[in-house]
């Protein structure tokens, strides 16, 4: 795929949308726009999972503000009309079960028709339960089995740097995912290779499938762990744009950046928040209706 002629393509976001100025922080109007987008995405997410009868809401909601920041906050350089543009930035969803937030984001960004979301997890759909790079435009890596997308992102960063491309690689991990040994293999490797074109986000919602992460497998001081592995660590409130966006655009000279995003699993719907049973369970009709109301009334991001 040839590079587009002329100057580098802008961060696309939506056509004509203003981008967040990262040096001055988010303006109120910009934050308002992102909040409204996040509301739309949460509606899509809960609807997709309700219609499909399965899917992962909790980990999609916890990741929403980070992913909205990436795609619509002027962070990620991409062009939805040219999904294979070689100089694009990459986003790898290593916590591959959070496809509802990824797919709804890609649909809003223009990678495929919004109507496709209705087909999520159906036999005739390109929208697999866990994302596949060969099926869905904008999905950069096939993920689902935890611990692997991270290593793939490291390989991407190494390959793009070798080619001298300006591309930056973002990868999102779950905190339950950080139980995987492969995460720590990659943590060593990315620092060892001095991959300054790599930013990882750890969606620190504190809940994994069997319960609280500190009960199932305690992580202790994650920031200290990543620092000890040679990463530059930034801790943010993972639901506040003014903290997320500057962290995502922070660059180090010779090391990768780890953004530990403190988040709430199921964020935005009261009975889903902090509730492990909404890791992979669909809502009932009553819960679905209630969720839509709460999302509508919600005000997350400021």
């Amino acid at each position, binding site marked *: 795929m040839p590079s587009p002629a002329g100057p580098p393509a802008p961060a696309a976001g939506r056509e004509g949308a203003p981008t967040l100025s990262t040096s001055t922080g988010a303006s109120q109007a910009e934050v308002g726009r992102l909040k409204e987008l996040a509301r739309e995405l949460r509606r899509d997410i809960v609807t997709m999972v309700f219609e499909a009868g399965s899917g992962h809401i909790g980990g999609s909601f916890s990741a929403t503000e980070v992913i909205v920041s990436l795609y619509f906050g002027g962070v990620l350089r991409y062009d939805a009309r040219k999904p294979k543009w*070689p100089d694009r930035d990459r986003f790898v969803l290593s916590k591959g079960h959070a496809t509802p937030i990824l797919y709804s984001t890609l649909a809003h960004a223009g990678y495929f028709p919004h109507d496709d979301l209705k087909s999520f997890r159906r036999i005739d759909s390109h929208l697999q339960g866990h994302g*596949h*790079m*060969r099926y869905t435009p904008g999905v*950069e*890596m*096939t*993920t*689902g*089995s935890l*611990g*692997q*997308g*991270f*290593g*793939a*992102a*490291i*390989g*991407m*960063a*190494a*390959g*793009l740097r*070798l*080619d001298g491309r300006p591309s930056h690689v973002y990868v999102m991990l779950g905190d339950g995912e950080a139980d995987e*040994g*492969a995460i720590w*293999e*990659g943590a*060593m*490797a990315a620092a*060892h*290779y001095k991959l300054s074109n790599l930013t990882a986000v750890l969606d620190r919602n504190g809940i994994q499938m069997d319960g609280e992460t500190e009960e199932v497998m305690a992580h202790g001081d994650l920031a200290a762990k990543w620092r000890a592995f040679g990463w530059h660590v930034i801790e943010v409130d993972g639901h506040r744009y003014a903290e997320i966006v500057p962290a995502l655009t922070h660059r180090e000279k010779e090391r990768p950046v780890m953004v530990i995003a403190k988040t709430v699993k199921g964020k935005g719907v009261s009975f889903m928040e902090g509730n492990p049973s909404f890791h992979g369970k669909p809502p009932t009709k009553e819960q679905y209706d209630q969720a839509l109301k709460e999302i509508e009334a919600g005000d997350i991001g400021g």
Partner: protein
Amino acid sequence: MSYSVAVTPRSGWKMKRCREAFGDELVRLGREMPNLVALNADVSSSSGTRKFEAEFPNRFWNTGVAEDNLMAMSAGLAATGKVVVASTFSVFATAQPYNTIRQSIAYPALNVKIFASHAGVTVGGDGATHQMLEDVSLMRGLPNMRVIVPADDLETRLAVRTAVKQDGPFYLRVGRSEVPTLMPEDYEFRLGEAVELQGGSDVTICANGQMVVPALEAADLLRHEGVEARVLNVHTVKPIDREAVERAAADTGGIVTAEEHSVYGGLGSAVAEVVCETTPVKVARVGTQDVFGRSGEIPDLLEFYGLTQKEILAASLQAARPDVQARIRKSSTLMAVIEKARPLRPVPEQYAA
């Protein structure tokens, strides 16, 4: 579509290491292809990537002893348009990172070539932990994965070149030790096509890797006693050369398989599947009989695990059609050898506590 190749006369055989042939060819390919990159997991000097690493330091990554990351990084590099060769010992190249290969390489059909050395019992003294006997089975079960087991250094070189030049995932496995250079200088490697090394219509021996030489030896003994065995070098286990196997079944009426691998899931299984489906004849499989390896000298290990011409002859007697069986039985020379063969079946006492 199989084709015939005349094996280099025995007097011309030299002992070479396939993993070194791989390393040399990788450097040549690296010079031809700027987008070729290689990775290893701390066995670069042993499995063959050291020369590439020395000539192309920017295009080589050592992941340390971290095989999941080896395969995941390989997938990511392939996703940026690189042709990726990932190499380590076969047990660490398959069993350890199996799910990473499955999800991140095979499922998205990424352009990663897994080159595994130190396959089979001929690893020697390191013992069972390092003697991989199930790798072909593991890799053959993966959709999109093609599996090659070269017989000598020349075939290794050509197979590596073929895999690198063709899009998509490949698994290649070779042993640690030296093997004779049996394929001729002008040998043309064709993916998915068995090579007929010796013609014959009495029985067929399908072999690959280190078992091609004992297959030829067994065929020589048979011929001396009036039994013409067809010997096929089935280097590509997946996709298996269905036509060559079906033709062998139809022409000879009995098939022997021989591989330095478990009889479960490898060449023997691949051949038996084809035969059962379309051309039922007897198949007898030579390989390790559902057991782990052990430490030892190579000749002792090959004897212990029944990976010699003796077992190939015993299997020939078992699989051949009745008239050929009768001819084998009439030969006191052949029967004397066959009597010394290890049993061609799983050894139940292995399960005892």
